[in-house]
C-alpha cells in the first residue's frame, strides 16, 4: 500500500520531470501493481481535458474589442499619470511637441532643484557594495564577489558551529 502512495503522485509526470531513480521505481511498481496501472489509464483518459475545456471556452468568446478595452483602460488612468506618459513621444504626431513635452518638465525640474539646493536627493543614498551587518553573538564575514555579497557567520577558516 505504501508503495502505491509513493508512486501515485508520479503517474502524470512528463518526460524529464522525474529523476532516473524515480522513473525506474515507477516503472517497476507499475509492472507489479494492477491497481496503479488502472489509475494510470484513468489519468491518461483525463489528461489535458482541463486545458481543452478552458481553451474551448476562450475560443467561443468574442475578443474583437478586448485590446481596445485594454488600451482604453490604460488611457483612463488618472490624468496626471496619463499626462506624464503623454510627455513622451507615444502617440505624438509632431516631433517638436514631442521634444517639448520632454524638455520642458526636465528643465523645470532642474531649475527647481538648483533653486532649492536639492541636488543631493538625486544622488543615490546607497552605493553598490555598501554593507552594514550586525548580529548579537555572531561574528559576521562579508565576502564580496562579482555576482554579489555573501554574508556568513564566523569566518571562512572557522565557521561558527564547527
Amino acid at each position, binding site marked *: 500500500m505504501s508503495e502505491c502512495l509513493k508512486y501515485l*503522485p508520479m503517474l502524470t509526470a512528463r518526460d524529464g520531470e522525474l529523476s532516473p531513480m524515480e522513473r525506474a521505481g515507477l516503472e517497476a511498481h507499475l509492472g507489479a501493481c494492477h491497481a496503479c496501472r488502472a489509475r494510470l489509464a484513468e489519468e491518461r483518459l483525463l489528461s489535458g481535458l482541463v486545458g481543452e475545456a*478552458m481553451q474551448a471556452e476562450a475560443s467561443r*468568446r468574442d475578443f474583437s474589442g478586448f485590446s481596445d478595452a485594454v488600451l482604453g483602460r490604460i488611457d483612463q488612468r488618472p490624468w496626471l499619470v496619463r499626462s506624464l506618459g503623454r510627455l513622451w513621444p507615444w502617440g505624438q504626431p509632431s516631433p517638436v511637441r514631442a521634444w517639448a513635452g520632454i524638455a520642458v518638465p526636465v528643465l523645470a525640474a532642474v531649475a527647481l532643484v538648483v533653486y532649492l539646493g536639492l541636488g543631493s536627493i538625486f544622488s543615490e543614498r546607497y552605493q553598490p557594495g555598501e554593507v552594514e551587518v550586525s548580529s548579537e553573538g555572531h561574528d559576521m564575514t562579508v565576502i564580496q564577489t562579482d555576482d554579489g555579497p555573501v554574508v556568513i557567520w564566523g569566518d571562512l577558516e572557522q565557521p561558527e558551529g564547527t
Partner: protein
Amino acid sequence: MEADDLTLVSRAKAGDRDAFRALVVRYQRKVYAVALGIVRDRDLAWDVAQDTFVRVYSHLSSFKEESAFASWLFRIATHLSIDVVRKERTASKDDVDEVRESALEDGAEGILSTPLGNDPQDNLLRRELRDRISDALDGLPEKHRTILVLREVEGLSYEDLAERLAINKGTVMSRLFHARKKMQAALRRYAGRRGASNE
C-alpha cells in the same frame, strides 16, 4: 513574419502602441483561459485578463528582457486571479497536500469502469467529459483549481509550478494528485449517471 515577444516588448517600451496591442492580441485568449480556470466566472475572468495587461503595461519599464515575457505575463495573471478568489473564500480544512492512505480507498472504481466509460466510442466519452469540466472545476478548492489550470492550460512543468507557487516539487506533485482525484470523482459521478441513462 510575426515579430517575437522581445521585439514587441522593446518597441512597446519605446512607445509603440501597436506593438503593445500585438502582445495583447497574441496572449489574450490564453490569459483569459487561465483566469477563467481559476476564478470560475466569465465576467470576472474578463476583468482579470484586462487588469493583467494594464498592469503589464504599467510595469513594462521594469521588465528585464533576459526573462521570458510570457512567464512574466502569466505570473501576473495567476496572482491577480488568486487575489480575486481569496477575497471571497475562507480556507478549507480539506486543503491538505500530503497523500494519505485514504487516497487509495476513495473512488476505487474509475470512470473507465462506469457504463459510459465502457462505451467503445472513446471520442464521445472524452467530448462529454470535457463538457462537464466546468462543473467539476467549480467544485475544487482554489488551490487545486489553480495548480490544475497552470499545469494544463499554461502547460507548466513541475519545476515551473514550484517556482510560480513558491512550493517544492514534492508538494507540486501531491497537490496535482489531489486536484486530479477530486476532478475524477466529480466526472465519475457524471459518467455513472450518464452511462446509466443511455442503457
